[in-house]
């Protein structure tokens, strides 16, 4: 199946620890850099819908800046009682230094 990828920004614009929100065809998507590894997840915390943009990213986890629920950016899995619902994870690729994201689900990641 062909996936449509949307070019969003240059890798250089997203240093480690940074994240930026985008809206594509009604999807709120957060693109981030976890210690050099780029990821794309839904930019809405599954706890109470706060944007995750700007949340601290450390050791592969993003912490929601509103109430602090933590999610694994690779799998989308949340932690604790308030993180029972995982984040949607989007497929991401880097072409010529440019980050592209597809609205299709990312290939299953084994956690």
């Amino acid at each position, binding site marked *: 199946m062909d996936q449509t990828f949307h070019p969003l920004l240059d890798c250089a614009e997203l240093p480690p620890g940074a994240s930026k929100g985008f809206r594509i065809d009604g999807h709120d998507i957060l693109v981030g850099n976890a210690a050099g590894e780029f990821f794309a997840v839904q930019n809405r915390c599954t706890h*109470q819908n706060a944007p995750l943009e700007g*949340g*601290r990213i450390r050791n*592969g*986890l993003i*912490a929601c800046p509103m*109430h*602090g629920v*933590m999610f694994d950016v690779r799998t989308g899995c949340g932690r604790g009682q308030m993180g029972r619902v995982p984040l949607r994870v989007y497929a991401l690729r880097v072409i010529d230094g440019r980050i592209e994201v597809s609205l299709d689900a990312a290939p299953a990641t084994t956690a």
Partner: protein
Amino acid sequence: MNTPCEAIQPGAARCPGPSTADIIRADGDHAPAHLTTPNYRFIGDEDIDFARYTTREFFEQEKQKLWLKVWQWACREEDIPEAGDYFVYEITDRSVIIVRTADGTIKAYPNSCLHRGTQLKPAGSAGRSKNLRCPFHGFTWSLEGALTEVPCRWDFPHIDDERFRLPALRVETWGGFVFINFDDQAPPLAEHLGILPEHFANWDLSAKFTARHVRKLLPANWKACLEAFLESYHVLETHPQGVATVGDANSQYDIYGDTVSRFVHLVGYPSPHLEQHFSEQQILDALMAEGVVEGVGEGIGGDADPAAGRLRVPEGGTARQTFARHLQGMLGTAYGKDFSHLSVTETIDAIEYALFPNTCLFPSLLFPMVYRFRPNGNDPDTCIFDLLFLQPLPDSGERPDPAEPFELDIEQSFHEVPGFDPGLATIYDQDTGNLIGQQRGFKSSTKHGETLGNYQEVRIRQLHRTLDAFLRR
């Protein structure tokens, strides 16, 4: 049964053979004077009641009179480097938010909304926020603790903003650790630290980062778990694989005031229990064959130039000196630092300080560990063991993120921790493997308490004496 030496005072007897101080002096270098200055005194030989480890009543006393009164470290400063960074610390059934404020100071607040009590941040979480906002109704406080938002404020005419500031707990820092105290009347942290800052003046723990963090649930009371690490008397029976390279029975035990104790456990010196003679080269070969600690195990043999063959003790040298210089070079390369100024003992010996009530700190290069033992919630029978490896910050000044805890349940082995040195994993498995038997044994005994060695187990006695002092207050 042989009769004890009746002629000498209790606690004065020592293992026959050279003392730890003798052996460190024989290294012939500039070891800190306090390491070769024994600081033992006899503080009693009464049995320690098993009920102190097992009963709900004793645990409740500890909750009220120890944990709510004593300085305890909650996190490392590196856990909250920037404004808005927070860390949730838990002790018994209390939860505390440690926050870095806009001006860089650190605050600690009870993790509870002043409206209807909900935790402001989830248990076990850490992250960065502009403010502290309750997930239930949205009452919000600034990082500095000022009330900034009350949804439907019209319904709370009786709230006075000033009286609705988040109550601040005591916070002080030392060595990169953030200490809190629930007690407004507690003496300053410096008083609690005693001699530690003086001894650690050249072992700056704030210039290190948490390279590894393992958090394991243990099946025994927190004190029993801590005590398993306060003496090397157990080495012969519990870790028989290592006796060729560690002086166990001649370890030096020191107590300082009520809150600090130490052992100096030699590496690169065979156990006095062994009758056979080892050459210095044989000891060095044994050291090189062991993975004593992470990052060293494979590297020890592996990094040696194959053309140069095995590491040799030079004429007139010792295994300790040769091993220390080798480690200084190897770890110096690994961390981009110059360690050549360190004495042999500061490089290779297991020098362990305990800070009351629940922490052990190791300053030497070969042993990067920090231990902390906390009760597991309200359960006297289980304990949370935090094992941190603090490694030197590279000279580049770049500070790596502190490691996330890797969690192990009661039944899991340290061998399951990715990248953990197998030799060390076996040691920790052996140390923690006896605990369930001990906790159960406490409850099966028809004897009322445990009997301690006067010298080798004096640090355990000091722990209980200081605990008693807290419980009497």
